[in-house]
């Protein structure tokens, strides 16, 4: 269990403001945010590497705020592996064992298990200088887990990897968490990693928490415009709410049910906006006539930006539909989105 209570950190060019998080025992928690949002500073505060100016940190109900890093019992894995270059794979893995004795015996009894778990037996004697990215990250994980930490912190563990190794390590992380039930706090800027691995998630921006919730909540019900954009709701607009309707400038949007007038924004995912060359059947809600203003080929799909009543909406269609509809810039199209996909907040 990790509890971060009102954490404030002031660095010369960055501050964390009152971060408050409770990560349950056995949870796989992801902390999301763009580069420079403060994700790593949170991790370093938990490990004990940055001075905490306010607030407290508990690990398994023990207040560790003033403990040095070596007394906290935290495993950490960095994006760039951070393996000791002067040691072999085996020496890296057993590095921490001498500091962890229980009842006079080293805790290394699960060493064999870990080595096999990460398929490292064959490369135990190798220098770490000749390993692939995937092997390095497996060694880094094994090293962190060998000392049996109470929690595991992962600092963008997949970012530096080639796509192939990324899949491999992602699988290993998922399996590892399922098997051992260790508490994991993973930091990432990639929402799809959180979707694949995480149970609950927090989004941080400019040193402040924007939202905490399950991955599904964050994905479908972002709490702020920043989170909405971050999870891919490219269409975020300030809106005025009136009963079951919302107004974005002159555009009237029908809602599934009555929303509080205190809400301020609506957001729609680009893949939820359907585009057709001909009119939608009568009665289709939120059907608008628009002009294509830009098409951006992204490989398997294209971003289509359409403009209606001065408002730009972004939709996604597959490259084959694009071809079939022979869309180009300036084409008049019809767009529609269901009332259920309009998120108000």
């Amino acid at each position, binding site marked *: 269990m990790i509890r971060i209570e009102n954490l404030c950190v002031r660095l010369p060019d960055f501050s964390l403001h009152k971060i408050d998080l409770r990560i349950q025992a056995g949870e796989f928690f992801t902390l999301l945010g763009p580069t420079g949002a403060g994700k790593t500073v949170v991790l370093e505060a938990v490990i*004990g590497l940055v001075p905490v100016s306010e607030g407290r940190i508990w690990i398994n109900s023990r207040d560790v705020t003033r403990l040095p890093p070596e007394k906290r019992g935290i495993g950490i894995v960095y994006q760039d592996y951070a393996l000791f*270059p002067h040691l072999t794979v085996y020496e890296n893995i057993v590095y*921490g064992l001498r500091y962890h004795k229980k009842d006079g015996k080293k805790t290394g009894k699960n060493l064999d298990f870990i080595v096999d778990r990460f398929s490292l037996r064959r490369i135990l004697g190798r220098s770490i200088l000749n390993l692939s990215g995937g092997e390095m990250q497996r060694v880094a994980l094994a090293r962190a887990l060998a000392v049996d930490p109470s929690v595991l912190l992962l600092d963008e563990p997949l970012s530096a990897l080639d796509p192939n190794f990324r899949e491999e390590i992602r699988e290993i992380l998922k399996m590892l968490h399922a098997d051992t039930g260790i508490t994991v706090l993973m930091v990432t800027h990639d929402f799809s990693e959180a979707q694949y691995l995480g149970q609950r998630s927090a989004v941080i921006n400019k040193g402040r928490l924007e939202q905490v919730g399950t991955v599904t909540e964050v994905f479908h019900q972002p709490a702020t415009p920043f989170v909405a954009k971050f999870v891919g709701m490219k269409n975020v607009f300030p809106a005025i709410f009136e009963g079951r309707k919302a107004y974005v400038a002159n555009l009237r949007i029908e809602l599934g049910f009555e929303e509080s007038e205190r809400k301020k924004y609506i957001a729609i995912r680009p893949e939820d906006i359907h585009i057709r060359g001909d009119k939608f059947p009568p009665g289709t809600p939120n059907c608008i006539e628009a002009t294509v203003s830009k098409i951006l080929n992204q490989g398997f799909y294209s971003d289509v930006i359409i403009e209606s009543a001065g408002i730009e909406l972004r939709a996604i269609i597959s490259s084959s539909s694009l071809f079939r509809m022979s869309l180009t810039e300036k084409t008049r199209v019809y767009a529609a989105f269901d009332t259920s996909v309009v998120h108000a907040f």
Partner: protein
Amino acid sequence: MKLPNWRNQALDPLIWLTVSSSMIIIAFILLPLFEMVFQSSLADLRETIRDKDVIQSIRLSIYTSVSAALISFLFGTPFAYLLARKEFAGKKFIESIVDLPIMIPHPVIGIAILSIAGKNHWLGEIMSSLGIRIMGSVTGIIVVLTFVGLPFYVNNVKTGFEAIPVRLENISRSLGASAIGTFFRVTFPLAWRSMVVGMIMCTARAISEFGAIVIVAYHPMIAPVMIYQRFTAYGLRYSQPVAVWLIIVCLFLFLLLRVFSIHKKKMT
């Protein structure tokens, strides 16, 4: 020396400018050294190295220079670590101070050190009451050589420490090692080459010093002073063989330095 692989014929005028300046510089550096070595006959060299005074002076040079390097290692290592790892107000200023001894004229260094060693100064008085003499003593030579050699050690080791990712130290702490344990198990094994290189550079700088030493301690004679003394007393031909022997020691240090520097680059 193979000529560089010039990419384009149109560079002609530049080729000749650069290649000829380069040749001139290399000749300018090598020619005097070669001449000096070859003007000394083997017989002269053999005779010189049998001269007890010469052996004594070269030995003293090596002893005092290596001592200076060891002192630099002891005090300079924590200092270099501080400069490499911590940010603090006035850091730029401190770094400037470290470079000062490089810039100060050599006889001035000698005079400055004598300024605090005299009996009219409290430090000199303390030292003399402890039986430590600077003027004309081996201690004095070591003090001077440490003064001129220390910056080379500190700057080099600082760069060495900076090249080690802080994350390795963080990981070590998170695995249970204390700050000191981390230093010995992670930082030191990764930085020792830069320490060796720093000590060699410090030794080399120290062994070449003359101007400050001749002020502080003409006797006991280190090799450069001995060369100077032979030159003034007997002339060029009698100082050359001693100079050649001293150069051999220096070239050995130089070679050692290259070997360690290259290995260091391979590691990282």
